[in-house]
């Protein structure tokens, strides 16, 4: 039995599919005559014809034909049973739970005489399709195109030799060559595990019960069982050795306690000293002795974290010194210099230690913290629950967003996202002119009551041809305003300006019932327009404009319509290209272009 047995099935079954098709041709599957057919049978016949057509189309494609042909055979036998002389009464009596529609149909059919059945076949067909509602009828229950093939149909249940052959075909044991190949890839332990796995599953189970899962709940992953999943896997037993409690008398206990504490202190002190020595070395290396100290930067960092590592490095250094001491000889001057530097740093470190426990050195080591912690060995046999650990998904999300470039202006990180999106500096973003133009109080009626929130329309502009519109809604008014303003900054787009002061021609836009008409005006005209449009013009750097809102003056729609109008100005360049004509701005032609 091999794990890739399913991949082989389709390739082998092509030949078998052809066999089955021959078998199908031999079965007396003549289509029934029209006289004997009821509407049901007629349906069956159609089905048969369709399926046969499908079969023909698919023979050359894949082995899947095989499955289909068996399904057809089943289908036919079932339908032929139904093709007995039509007798409505027993069927009516049998099916009490039949829907009203089909009950009615059967009654109508029973009202006919036997002679008229043949000639009214067409009508019956129509009645069969008649619906009591106008929508299209639901298709019958969708079935998979490929039916399951039962072991019984394959003849595996009755003949053991067939079963053996099938088993050998599909789930053959490993050959010697394959085992050799496995040995080259896997360790002996892994091979043992593979063998155990093979033995654990009986191939007969796979033959009789195995199926390829196609249900929506099948696992979507490939599992290599390297990680314990608490949903499926049994929690392994921890093999901690229970210890005998020692009931000491007070003096023994005091002695033991004292010695334990002394050991701890010794260990801690030596570790402290090692750590400070490493720090001193590091500092010396950073300052001047880069080529004189063998340890690399990473090694020093590791050492500081875990002083135990020092042993390893010391041994290595000794060995090295023995092997090539000729090459690694330093000059006396260098050695003196290095010693002096290290001494100085060392003294500094020592003085730091002597300052007191609050300098960070008196803290317990990591190892002690772990041992003492909830997941430590001390708690192995306690009733306390183990520590859950951190959820990996939120790791690093609670970082402080402070960016040194912001000079402390954005410590709560409100501007970080927009900084990332726009690529602008905080100073530039904050210098953008922003204004809330529309504020609405809206409610969402839920079954729990009204949820009131504030809807804000804000604009942002750089005062030099860029304007953005932001709409946000929140139960917090302040949050909505801020979000709307940031959105407006993000949405800033360039708008066309004629001579950097007014618009090109007249623009008009309509949003719902609000129509905004904007008119270009000569220099010095000013902004004679409704106040929201005034704000928009100010933000975008338009200085001469007239506007009119002949219809509805809805605040929100007027802002939207004004924005649309500003965005959809005519472009003389485009018009000139479209018409193939040269267009001239006469203001730039008369008086030598000196119009100001």
């Amino acid at each position: 039995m091999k794990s890739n047995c399913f991949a082989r099935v389709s390739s082998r079954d092509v030949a078998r599919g052809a066999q089955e098709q021959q078998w199908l041709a031999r079965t007396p599957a003549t289509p029934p005559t029209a006289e004997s057919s009821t509407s049901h049978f007629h349906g069956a016949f159609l089905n048969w014809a369709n399926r046969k057509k499908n079969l023909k189309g698919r023979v050359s494609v894949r082995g899947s034909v095989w499955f289909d042909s068996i399904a057809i055979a089943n289908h036919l036998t079932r339908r032929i049973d139904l093709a007995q002389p039509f007798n409505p009464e027993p069927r009516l009596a049998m099916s009490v739970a039949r829907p009203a529609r089909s009950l009615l149909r059967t009654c109508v059919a029973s009202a006919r005489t036997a002679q008229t059945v043949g000639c009214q076949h067409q009508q019956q067909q129509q009645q069969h399709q008649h619906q009591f509602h106008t929508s299209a009828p639901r298709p019958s229950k969708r079935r998979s195109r490929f039916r399951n093939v039962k072991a019984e149909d394959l003849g595996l249940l009755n003949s053991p030799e067939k079963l053996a052959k099938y088993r050998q075909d599909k789930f053959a044991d490993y050959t010697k060559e394959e085992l050799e190949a496995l040995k080259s890839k896997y360790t002996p332990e892994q091979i043992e595990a593979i063998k155990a796995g093979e033995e654990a599953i009986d191939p007969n189970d796979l033959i009789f019960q195995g199926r390829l899962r196609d249900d929506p709940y099948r696992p979507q992953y490939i599992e290599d069982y390297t990680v314990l999943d608490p949903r499926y896997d049994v929690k392994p037993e921890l093999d901690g050795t229970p210890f005998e409690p020692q009931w000491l008398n007070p003096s023994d206990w005091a002695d033991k306690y004292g010695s334990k504490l002394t050991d701890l202190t010794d260990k801690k002190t030596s570790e402290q000293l090692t750590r400070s020595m490493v720090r001193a070395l590091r500092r010396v290396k950073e300052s001047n002795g880069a080529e004189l100290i063998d340890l690399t930067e990473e090694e020093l960092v590791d050492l500081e974290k875990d002083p135990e590592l020092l042993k390893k490095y010391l041994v290595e250094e000794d060995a090295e010194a023995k092997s090539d001491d000729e090459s690694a000889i330093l000059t006396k001057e260098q050695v003196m210099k290095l010693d002096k530097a290290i001494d100085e740093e060392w003294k500094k470190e020592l003085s730091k230690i002597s300052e007191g426990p609050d300098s960070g050195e008196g803290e317990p080591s990591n190892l002690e913290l772990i041992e003492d912690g909830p997941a430590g060995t001390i708690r192995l046999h306690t009733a306390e629950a183990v520590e859950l650990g951190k959820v990996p998904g939120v790791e690093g999300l609670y970082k402080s967003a402070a960016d040194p470039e912001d000079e402390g202006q954005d410590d709560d990180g409100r501007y970080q996202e927009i900084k990332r999106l726009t690529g602008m500096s905080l100073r530039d973003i904050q210098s953008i002119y922003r204004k809330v133009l529309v504020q609405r109080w809206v409610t969402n009626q839920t079954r729990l009551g009204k949820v009131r929130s504030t809807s804000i329309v804000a604009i942002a502009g750089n005062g030099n041809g860029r304007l953005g519109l932001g709409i946000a809604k929140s139960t917090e008014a302040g949050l909505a305003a801020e979000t709307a303003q940031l959105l407006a900054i993000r949405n800033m787009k360039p708008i066309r300006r004629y001579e950097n002061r007014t618009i090109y021609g007249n623009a008009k836009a309509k949003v719902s019932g609000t129509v905004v008409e904007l008119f270009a005006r000569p220099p010095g005209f000013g902004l004679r327009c409704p106040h929201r449009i005034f704000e928009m013009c100010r933000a975008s750097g338009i200085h001469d404009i007239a506007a009119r809102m002949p219809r509805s003056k809805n605040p929100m729609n007027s802002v939207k319509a004004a924005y649309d109008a500003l965005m959809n100005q005519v472009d003389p360049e485009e018009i000139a290209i479209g018409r193939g004509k040269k267009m001239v701005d006469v203001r730039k032609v008369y008086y030598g272009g000196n119009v100001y």
Partner: protein
Amino acid sequence: MPSILNIAHMCSHLQNASKARLGLTSIPSNKYNLHLALALHRSGFFSSVYRAGPHPPTPEQMVAQVPEPVTNATVAKMRIWLGLKYWDGKPVLSKATVISKPSRQLTVDVQELARLTRGFPTKLKGGVVSGLGVGECMFVSTARGVLEVREALAKKVGGVLMCRVS
């Protein structure tokens, strides 16, 4: 004087055709339509103007063959086929509205034409007409044919205001 109603029909048909993004459309073949179509073609709104029968002519035919002459037998079937232009996904001719109506003919003299061309709204005998906007064209039916307002001004002729197109 031909009926201005033909022009009204032509304007609305052109608007509909450009909204439907048609490449080639046809209007009834008559002199008034033809002259306006040629004036629009001069202003760059059409790629082609061709007279043909009820079936659209091929591009090769429009380039290579002279339109067949109109005879008494064919006059009723003739259409003017107009090639519409699009640029940057938008129609070059997107709006065409008639100015004069059969019930209200608006005539302009040269002075009024000059005001209109400079973009000022002008009071005519029948009512006020707004001036030209950016990229707008107005067509006048004059004694020297159908002209664009700028052409009419250059030739110093007035006439009946027909339509404005943009």
